[in-house]
């Protein structure tokens, strides 16, 4: 078991090296001639420098609907943590596990229906 996770550790090392190598290599061979207009933020059809100061920065508060979806996502993703072990052990657990899981999924379906009815699943 341990040597399997040893391979995982080696892959984790490779996962860092693998993107770093081409970045370093291209850092060596590519041209480096930056200038002001090259380094300006991309804008389509307008002069970025003409924007007022507060419009040049986009690190602003963003619309709240994204966070609502994130909340529903957390609920369902945590649920999966319970579903996977249940699914692995299902054949050994028998009928009781089935009833329990149907109750569990039923509650989640109710929650989904509640969110649905309140219009949380609609993008406006």
């Amino acid at each position, binding site marked *: 078991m341990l*040597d*399997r*996770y*040893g*391979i*995982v550790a*080696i*892959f*984790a090392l*490779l*996962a*860092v090296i*693998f*993107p770093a190598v*081409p*970045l370093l*290599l*291209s*850092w060596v*061979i*590519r*041209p*480096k*001639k*930056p200038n*002001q207009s090259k*380094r*300006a*933020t*991309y804008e*389509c059809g307008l002069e970025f420098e003409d924007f007022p100061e507060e419009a*040049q920065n*986009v*690190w602003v508060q*963003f619309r709240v609907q*994204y966070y609502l*979806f*994130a909340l*529903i*996502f957390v609920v*369902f*993703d945590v649920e*999966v943590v319970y*579903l*996977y072990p249940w*699914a*692995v052990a*299902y*054949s050994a657990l028998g009928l009781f596990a*089935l009833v329990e*899981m*149907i109750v569990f*999924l039923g509650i*989640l*379906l109710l929650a*989904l229906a509640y969110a*649905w009815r309140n219009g949380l*699943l*609609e*993008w406006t």
Partner: protein
Amino acid sequence: MDILNKLFTNIYDAINAFLNGLIGGFGLTADAVSAIVAAVMGLLVGTAVLLFGVGVVLTLIWLERKVAARVQDRVGPNRVGPFGLIQPVADTVKMFIKEDIVPTNADGLVHLLAPVIALAPAVLAFVVVPFGQGMAPADLNIGVLWIISVSSIGTIGLFMAGYGSNNKFALLGGMRAVAQAISYEVPQVLTIVPIILLAGSMSLVTIVQKQSAIWYVFLPVGLIAFVVYYISALAEVNRTPFDLPEGESEIVAGHHTEYSGMKFGLFYLAEYFNFFIVCTVATTLFLGGWQGPFLPSWLWFILKTYGLIILGMWIRMTIPRFRVDQLMKFAWQVLVPISLVNIILTALLLVFFKTG
């Protein structure tokens, strides 16, 4: 045929024996020798898998353009090499020699780390993929969970690209990428539960072995799970019809608007890596992995995976992009209920067939 089938495992054994002999000659303890050999073999396997992955990506770039050309009644790349086969190599060289431009307003560190974080999870996901009989780099007993948990990290890279660029198109693209990835991750994750129920294991190797009698896609519940998985996987890797994070006709290039040179190349690589991985996972879970008559196991695996990849390219060329509201609605109001009901259905059927 048996020689071909065991080709790669035999090469592995031969190198393993050679290393054992080589390092054993230094007079170290047996434990030290086996540890060093295991580490070197792990590095070799990892490098081989990554080189294979890069090769796959190069063929995918070529294939994607050729399929697109075929669908749109064009010829496609045909100047660089026979049938344009060297075109992806030329593209790669171009990525290497292009200047790297970082906007003055951007957060330099986040801008640099974003492509690395987008690509690293794709490499990690390769650990558990069984490329053929006895050819999984590591047969973890939590294989499915590993792939799912690792591949969702890549989304953070896309968001970092959007946020770090300090560009409104990039920010919109990054936000959309996160919203889409988390919405489609729920059906993608839920729809695998019936397969785990059927196989009674999360190890990808065991799941493939359990399919020796019948591939899960030929069972009714397996077919539903496969369709849901494939759709949400396409959305997860941001491919057209679900390419809203890039949406070139509305937000320029989405999260990689401000990227050029090799940093952009890494995003490109990550995108194709992820596409390849979701197709290998679909092959493993639903299409019986390496199982198949006559041909060697690894060839079957590659053939099935490329079949799914070409299906994805065909879908890309045929279906126009979704709107954001349609996208969210489809995930939460169609795919999630279907996969929840599918779980209950599978559990019920299993009880029914066991007792009756």
